[in-house]
């Protein structure tokens, strides 16, 4: 664990965090709540810690927003109903995904999904990266196929066979490595920044496409 807070060294902080956490979950008695709110008003450090804990919750809720959309939920329901209607062979797997994946297979990391196209896209990216914050409407979007709904093809099963030697290899763009070998921990911060930027540009392109269409 790399967490900076050592509970044994800071029992007071632990108790304080426990109180703040219960406060965020509305799990304090009214009197406890009122007492804490009085402290928050006069103890900026306590208020700052509360803000940091609250930011975690907000981040988690943002992750939740990435959940399945209505259309997806409905498609899954139709598959489910076919099964419940008495067809025991009906596949519960996602009907609109090209290749159902074996259960339990870890999802391909977003980084891994885009890495194979990174080298080819590097030259074009240099242009994007040099652009000022405001985007030109006529700048084409980056390749989309590598960024979302990448078909889970046979190469994804390479992950089942990866060797320890390959896993130890930290050369992120080595061609002999399957993209599955890569994780964010093997990518430099510059490479991760490029991936983040690619995903943002892809998001903006999709948004604009939707807005214009």
């Amino acid at each position, binding site marked *: 664990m790399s967490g900076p807070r050592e509970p044994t060294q800071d029992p007071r902080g632990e108790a304080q965090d426990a109180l703040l956490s219960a406060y965020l979950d509305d799990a304090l008695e009214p009197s406890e709540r009122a007492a804490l709110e009085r402290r928050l008003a006069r103890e900026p450090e306590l208020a700052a810690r509360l803000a940091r804990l609250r930011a975690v919750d907000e981040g988690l809720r943002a992750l939740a927003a990435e*959940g399945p959309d209505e259309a997806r939920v409905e498609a899954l329901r139709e598959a489910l109903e076919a099964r419940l209607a008495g067809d025991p062979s009906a596949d519960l797997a996602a009907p609109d995904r090209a290749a159902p994946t074996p259960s339990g297979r870890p999802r391909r990391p977003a980084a891994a999904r885009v890495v194979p196209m990174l080298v080819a896209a590097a030259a074009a990216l240099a242009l994007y990266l040099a652009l000022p914050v405001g985007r030109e409407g006529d700048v084409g979007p980056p390749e989309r196929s590598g960024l979302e709904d990448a078909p889970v093809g046979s190469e994804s099963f390479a992950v089942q066979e990866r060797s320890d030697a390959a896993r130890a290899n930290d050369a992120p763009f080595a061609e002999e490595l399957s993209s599955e070998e890569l994780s964010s921990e093997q990518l430099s911060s510059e490479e991760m920044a490029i991936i983040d930027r690619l995903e943002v540009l892809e998001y903006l392109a999709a948004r604009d496409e939707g807005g214009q269409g």
Partner: protein
Amino acid sequence: MQTSDPDARLMLAFRDGDDAALSTLYRRWAAPLVRFLERIVRDRTTAEELMQETFVRVHGARDRYEPQARFSTWLYRIARNLALNELDRARNRAPHLAADATGAGEDREAGDTGRPSLALVDGGASVDTLVDARRESRRLQAALDSLPERQRSALWLAAVEGHAYEEIATMLDTTTASVKSLVHRARSGLADRIEAEAARVGEAGR
């Protein structure tokens, strides 16, 4: 038995022959269940399959359903048990890859859903702002994935799904005091890790 839980009433209606009641329950709970299951198994497709399997179990329990707790509590218990079984199976299939239920996960990005939560911060935000948001989301996802499953589940159910500690205790088969502790340790741990990571990245230069 009378129940004030509208979901339990729907389930009783389903038990008594109203098939549409199950569809209503599905539409209400399918998406939150997928999100919750994805936090445990760290894979969207598996989470979707487990959500469907959960409703298969609900359907199978139709004739013997009795509302003893909130319907959602019962539903999440079924879902989590299926997910933990799935983790066990995955671990047996490929021990070095399995998303472990006890933390110390090596596959820190496995639950990354790819699509950034950018719409939440968009509103005409600059590319740089959106890149920052994407980076934060990635860090949080990795930090969340590294927590022990019980902490991960407890925090998610409290902070995102808004369940009371008592309900979560039933879902996780533990005590309310334990849930309070799990949630607090998870939340504090994430806050500390994100802070440390941000400091580390800051020092390394952006």
